């Protein structure tokens, strides 16, 4: 017997959301990843977030590169658009798609090999340009498809399953994304959906380059003692700086919390993130302080998670470039070929 399709039967009380779908309607094909892979939990978090936010599946585009992580878009949102690109080249294809049609929700799914090794250049530039997207990096620190060699995000001094010690310096993708200009930067853990689902929802609401690094243990090659990306290690060293309670417009916030423990961050489009602070020393709107905080705590071997940085006034690539608001596929021939008179006018302005 090979992999079975998940039975269509569901819990009798399974609810539908405002657009008439159950959570099961947001699922994709059955995963072919190893049993227990953290990536499958991330897929489940994306499904949950999209269902809760009443997102219509046909308004989502999933783009990915190559690798275990990049296979996952097949396993969620089975009724959305998808593009499996060349290794490390997801950011440029996503950028192009976004330029052509800004009305879709862009979900970039990548891994540590795809983003931090072969695709590092693309990774940096897509953040610089402020492409409006949710960039999920499913980070397990190893090349799972090629039997578990260290990837570029493996911590220095961590040990492989065969006992080899990693001597290379790791690429810290959250710091890199902040430095390159991402305006929403977070880190989650596949083993903590209570934290991850609100992060995904907040990233979807963010207008600009939103980046979530998700530590996702590789059960086959990187879940042993000596690994810094195992379920046990991350649970023991998790330094969650905050929890997101709401991603809603300000008018809808009604719940009370201890004064001082809650920060409301209003974004450009009027949406509000309500953050419950866990660590008072961390301010998610101060980029320099946030970078310092991350460096300090990572130096102590802690895995800093939560919403690490947010630029409430962020703008996206379309605002930078002043592009037309209508998706290109909705422009009529008259708009695209305005005629000889207009061409003359443009040429004249350039003389």
């Amino acid at each position, binding site marked *: *017997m090979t992999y*079975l399709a998940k039975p269509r039967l569901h819990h009798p009380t*399974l609810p539908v959301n405002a657009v008439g779908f159950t959570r099961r309607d947001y699922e994709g094909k059955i*995963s072919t990843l190893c049993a227990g892979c953290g990536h499958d*939990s991330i897929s489940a978090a994306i499904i949950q977030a999209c269902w809760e936010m009443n997102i219509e599946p046909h308004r989502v585009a999933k783009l990915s590169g190559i690798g275990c992580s990049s296979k996952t878009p097949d396993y969620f949102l089975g009724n959305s658009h998808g593009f499996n690109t060349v290794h490390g080249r997801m950011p440029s294809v996503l950028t192009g798609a976004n330029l052509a049609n800004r009305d879709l929700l862009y979900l970039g799914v990548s891994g540590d090999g795809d983003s931090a090794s072969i695709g590092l250049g693309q990774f940096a530039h897509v953040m610089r340009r402020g492409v409006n997207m949710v960039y999920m990096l499913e980070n397990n620190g190893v090349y799972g498809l090629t039997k578990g060699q260290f990837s570029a995000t493996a911590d220095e001094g961590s040990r492989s399953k065969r006992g080899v010690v990693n001597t290379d310096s790791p690429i810290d993708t959250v710091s890199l994304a902040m430095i390159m200009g991402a305006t929403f930067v977070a880190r989650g853990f596949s083993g903590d959906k209570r934290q991850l689902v609100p992060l995904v929802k907040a990233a979807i609401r963010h207008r600009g380059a939103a980046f979530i690094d998700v530590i996702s243990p590789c059960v086959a090659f990187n879940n042993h003692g000596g690994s810094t990306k195992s379920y046990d290690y991350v649970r023991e060293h998790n330094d969650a700086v905050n929890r997101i309670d709401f991603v809603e417009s300000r008018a809808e916030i009604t719940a009370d919390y201890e004064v001082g423990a809650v920060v409301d961050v209003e974004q450009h489009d009027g949406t509000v993130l309500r953050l419950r602070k866990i660590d008072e020393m961390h301010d998610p709107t101060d980029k320099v302080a946030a970078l310092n905080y991350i460096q300090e705590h990572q130096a102590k071997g802690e895995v800093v998670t939560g919403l690490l940085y947010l630029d409430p006034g962020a703008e996206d690539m379309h605002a930078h470039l002043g592009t037309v608001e209508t998706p290109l596929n909705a422009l009529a021939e008259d708009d695209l070929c305005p005629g000889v008179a207009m061409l003359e006018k443009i040429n004249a302005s350039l003389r």
Partner: protein
Amino acid sequence: MQPTDIRNPSYFHKVVDCQWACPAHTPVPEYIRLIAAGRYTDAYMVNWRSNVFPGILGRTCDRPCEPACRRGRVEERNTEKPEPVAICRLKRVASDLKDDVRALLPGRPSRSNGRRIACIGAGPASLTVARDLAPLGYEVVVYDGDPKAGGFMRTQVPRFRLPEEVIDEEVGYVLDMGVEFRGGERVDSLKAVLAEGYDAVFVGTGAPRGRDLQIPGRFEAGAHIHIGIDWLASVSFGHVDRVGRRVIVLGGGNTAMDCCRSAKRLGGEDVKVIVRSGFEEMKASPWEKEDAMHEGIPILNYLVPKSFEHEDGRLVAMTFEKVKAVYDDTGRRTLVPTGERDARFECDEVLIAVGQENAFPWIERDIGVQFDRWGLPVLDPATMQATLPSVFFGGDAAFGPKNIIWAVAHGHEAAVSIHKFCEGESLDERPDPLSSLVSQKMGIHEWSYDNDISGDRRYTVPWAAAEKALRSIKVEVELGFDASTAYKEAERCLNCDVQTVFTREQCIECDACVDICPMDCITFTADGDEADLRGRLNAPSTRPEQALYVSDALKTGRVMVKDEDVCLHCGLCAERCPTGAWDMQKFLFEMTHAGRRGSPDTTERSAA
């Protein structure tokens, strides 16, 4: 919450809803899998060991298993009309398609153990006692007033539901084990039987007297008014072969349904059923009501019989008072007259099927067998022993009218008691059931049961053409599933006996099982008491009577909680578990019958 103790066989037994609901605790999913595998003979033997009359029960059982079947619950809101697996009709398939099983049955014992047992009445309870005890060397004598054995099954279940060959076959299996049957010998004194020196006597005489209805006109028009159950017996023996054109059947139980359908076949053109209470409260099984209505028989409710009208000793009509149900604060119902004019229905014949009464005129009241104020024997409900220690009761004779499968269950318990009684052992120590729990893992994503859940709706059993069926009382109405339909229906079974077994020490809390579970059964959360936990599950717990499977604290301090309610037993949790913390293990549970010493031989033989 206290972690679940899966070593207690009751825990997993309760998860197998059908088997738990069956009075004889037949291992239902086990035989359904054997049917799917085409092993009809093995499926029949699993049944035969547990319920003695698979062919008879496969046609007539009251099927307490089906309302309990999980399939009906998981289809709720997934399909228009949720339906359980057709368990009863699959049982019949095993019986219809099996090979000759005689070589598999225990033969006559090579020698007697010197003990003699009398069974009074040759119905399912007595025959079960005989079957359990005869192979152990007991000399069993079965008495019955009728010339043939079978009791109620032979005399009162109409032939169009249960052909006589099926009764002959299965009753024969029991009698062929060296049981002495004294047909046509009606026992009229228990004292006399005891005087014959039997080591123990089992009373399985059923509840033979139908209740009468004493209202004006009953005596005068008596020639055309019959007690339903007696009338059915007369039909069965061919003494009655026609009925009046307009027939009223009084009563709402399964006997009433048998009466009206029989009347329809004996010339009744205008046959109607009239009940005192509401249609919903009728005691008849829903499918029996459906079958009757399918044959064009109306069921009128909220009509209380008032009188029989007669002219010159001839019945002409019945009058009924119209009532309605009124509920008081405690929910108790009373029927109060609506004050409308009485209803009057013309009729030529009336069949009274308003219940059965117990009667033991042949048991002397001075021999030590005590009766309660309802006329039922005073019994130990676990051992079936009467106040006279050598006398045991079972079937309808014990606690009033029930059904065949209960009679079988009583028979098994009584046989255990009689054996212990004869061996001088304490009757209160009941033998433990046999149970085994074996992993079904064959390889990666490979199990020894078919875990691909069928999405099919319940298949309907084909019927004989109505014209043909209604023309004769002896033509069997249901034709039974053919092999390919039986396979498809068997595949609807969720294999609830293949249990999800959780090993806390192996769990790394990766959430893979939570993510894959199609029914959202599994939750990892902080511990709490049961009510609290039920409020914090991933999917609401809607049936508190269904157990929660709770682990001890895991590494993070949380516990694993699984709501057993709507689990499909698809095994995807185990397939997605990286460490083998979840495993699918087949739980086989069998009641221990008389003389069995906990040897698991049958378990091994039937293991798929």
